[in-house]
């Protein structure tokens, strides 16, 4: 097995493990468009990185974090709907990124690699970033799991019973920005949301508690990554899209066998 393939599998599996629990919260809190917006903003980060001569990955993470902060502030106003605010930010940062990239001198930027990801180009630094950054994000999520879930179920109950609701909202948005900033290199701007929400949606069919769904989403994500890379290897299809197709396929299979599963669960339970 080639070493680039080993790195691709390791990176993909790590990313799926991180995206699982984050994806469930995105699904529960209806933040899919929020994630998408952050991903679009990441493209501006590529330009920022190149223009200022810093690492492109760092540029993407920083822009994602900035966009998340901007959105956290933007959601305090109530004149414009949150989807309008998200849509404006998503597309203006994307456009700004494209324009800025056109002005970057002397570097041929492979836009496709950022839009759809390039998992086969993962290097050791990317793996470390995924392991440490993604690991830290998941550790933080586990640490704030109970209050964040309480906030998701009922912000009022959570606030009355001592959860610092506003802080928690902002911290979660920043953690998501970190995860998305790290993930772009692998699945790209256009596909990251799919990797977050599709495995979570598949896991919903088989879970009875939030925790089961989070673990299930991580497992479905790992399965999609392995299936996608296998597909890419055998038919020479682009890896990022192949992973998303696999995730979607797993969702379809899940929805088909879910009624049977529920019947079995009822009999045994």
């Amino acid at each position, binding site marked *: 097995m080639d070493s680039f393939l080993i790195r691709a599998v390791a990176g993909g599996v790590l990313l799926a493990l991180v995206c699982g629990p984050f994806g469930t919260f995105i699904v529960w809190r209806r933040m899919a468009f929020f994630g998408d917006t952050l991903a679009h903003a990441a493209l501006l980060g590529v330009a920022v990185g190149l223009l200022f001569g810093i690492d492109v990955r760092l540029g993407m993470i920083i822009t994602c974090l900035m966009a998340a902060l901007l959105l956290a502030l933007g959601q305090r106003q109530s004149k414009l709907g949150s989807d309008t605010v998200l849509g404006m930010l998503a597309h203006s940062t994307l456009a700004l990124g494209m324009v800025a990239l056109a002005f970057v001198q002397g570097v041929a930027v492979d836009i496709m690699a950022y839009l759809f990801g390039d998992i086969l180009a993962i290097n050791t630094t990317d793996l470390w970033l995924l392991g440490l950054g993604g690991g830290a994000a998941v550790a933080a999520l586990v640490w704030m799991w*109970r209050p964040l879930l309480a906030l998701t*179920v009922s912000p009022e109950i959570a606030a009355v019973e001592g959860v610092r609701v506003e802080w928690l909202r902002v911290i979660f948005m920043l953690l998501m920005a970190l995860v998305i900033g790290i993930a772009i290199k692998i699945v790209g701007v256009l596909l990251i949301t799919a990797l977050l929400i599709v495995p979570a949606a598949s896991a919903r069919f088989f879970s009875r508690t939030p925790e089961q769904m989070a673990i299930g989403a991580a497992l479905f994500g790992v399965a999609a990554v392995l299936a996608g890379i296998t597909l890419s290897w055998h038919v020479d299809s682009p890896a990022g899209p192949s992973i998303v197709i696999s995730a979607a396929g797993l969702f379809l299979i899940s929805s088909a066998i879910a009624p049977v599963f529920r019947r079995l669960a009822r009999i045994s339970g």
Partner: protein
Amino acid sequence: MTVPLIEGRDLSLSFGGEAVLDNVSLAISAGEIITLIGPNGAGKSTLVKALLGLQTVDRGVVTRKPGLRVGYVPQKLAIDKVLPMTVKRFLNLTHHASLPARIEALHHVGASHVLNSQISELSGGETQRVMLARALLRQPDLLVLDEPTQGVDVVGQADLYRLIDTIRRAQGCAVLMISHDLHLVMAKTDKVVCFNRHVCCSGLPETVRQHPEYRSLFGYQAADAIGIYHHEHDHKHDLSGHVVGGCGHDHGSGHNHDPFAPSASGAGIEAKQHSDMRVKDVSRG
């Protein structure tokens, strides 16, 4: 006199120039049951949220006893179907409780059978009981219930009131309850506060038991738990809630304010002293 659990003094709040709370004072003491009644849009939930610190006010001060533990049962719980949640897990929402404690809490509210059910599959009454059980697991000093009897028939209402009374006696907690019904309240309530942007009147309910017609209508069992509240307002509200006529504020027509009642919070005790006149006007005192 002991320190109240929560005390709101002269609370005022307006949304877009429209007063929602107009100089409202309300205090809840340990072990006390207060029922807050008022028409739709009167600002009952807003008042409770202000007292709980969920809603900031424009003017006025809310003091909560340090370390106060509140069990909050919101009006409704909208758990999305996309979030899988068993009752067993829901009871651990904000704080961990052991499984035996959770089973006991459910048993206490008469909902043992739903332990392993999904929250989204429960009926309205079951959801209320589960939320109550969850609030009780924290052993609160104050239980806050926002329209717990909404969509429950009179017999169910009587059951729920009896349960709340049992809980109050077992745990010694105070209860602040919002009720959608303007006339039928919990018989065991210590003070009924009729609220429409300001405290309109407050006093004690009469037990329905004393009225033979109601007793035959509700049945003896239910009549025991439900009380009737007679309103005695000296002013009226128009459709948008503004005070028209009456006490707006003229003291000429035989209506006077007790000079010893500093604020609406004293009204319960006051009404007890005047037992012949169960309802005492305290509007905007």
